[in-house]
């Protein structure tokens, strides 16, 4: 069983569209994250949730809205997609309110055309 799974793996869409990426973890972890990795492999934290509560919200445009229906799921919805949103988005989870090792999903490669 995959520990952290995110879907879809690839997403190609036009500018202005709205899209969602889903993430689920079956590890029983209390903390989940969204990271964005750009073309230079720079990994930037976007959001962090602990038991469905938003605890970290970096300077991310409000077109990005995370939603955590329960502590095993953290979805990312993006409105009005822009070319600069093209990147690989990683979901991750960890224990101990974020202090433990993180387990990553396989990534979603988003291409905005």
């Amino acid at each position: 069983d995959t520990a952290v799974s995110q879907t879809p793996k690839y997403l190609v869409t036009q500018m202005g569209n709205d899209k969602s990426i889903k993430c689920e973890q079956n590890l029983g972890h209390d903390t989940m994250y969204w990271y964005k990795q750009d073309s230079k492999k720079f990994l930037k934290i976007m959001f962090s949730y602990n038991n469905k509560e938003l605890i970290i919200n970096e300077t991310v445009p409000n077109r990005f809205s995370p939603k955590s229906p329960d502590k095993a799921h953290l979805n990312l919805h993006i409105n009005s997609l822009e070319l600069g949103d093209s990147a690989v988005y990683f979901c991750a989870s960890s224990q101990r309110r974020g202090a433990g090792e993180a387990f990553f999903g396989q990534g979603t490669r988003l291409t905005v055309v």
Partner: protein
Amino acid sequence: SQQGEEDPQALSIQEGENATMNCSYKTSINNLQWYRQNSGRGLVHLILIRSNEREKHSGRLRVTLDTSKKSSSLLITASRAADTASYFCATVQSTGANSKLTFGKGITLSVRP
């Protein structure tokens, strides 16, 4: 801003040689972690070292931490072609009751057969 800065940015060695990668950070930390990312994949946790630890071993990996210099090193001994990947250090800082995991820019390691 990124917390960790790794050096070198790229490293190319012959199979069987040792690889040493360094990481420096700016603020106080709870722990420091190293991750590996193979091309097109998610990140995989390698090792975690707590702020009160100075050295840790795991198989062919050796990690050191010098909190006075705010630096860490990852040594991979007897490298193999399969070690070819990007390596990231990540620091955990406490933010109240929660923690934040922040990544450095990464080091690209190439191991020539």
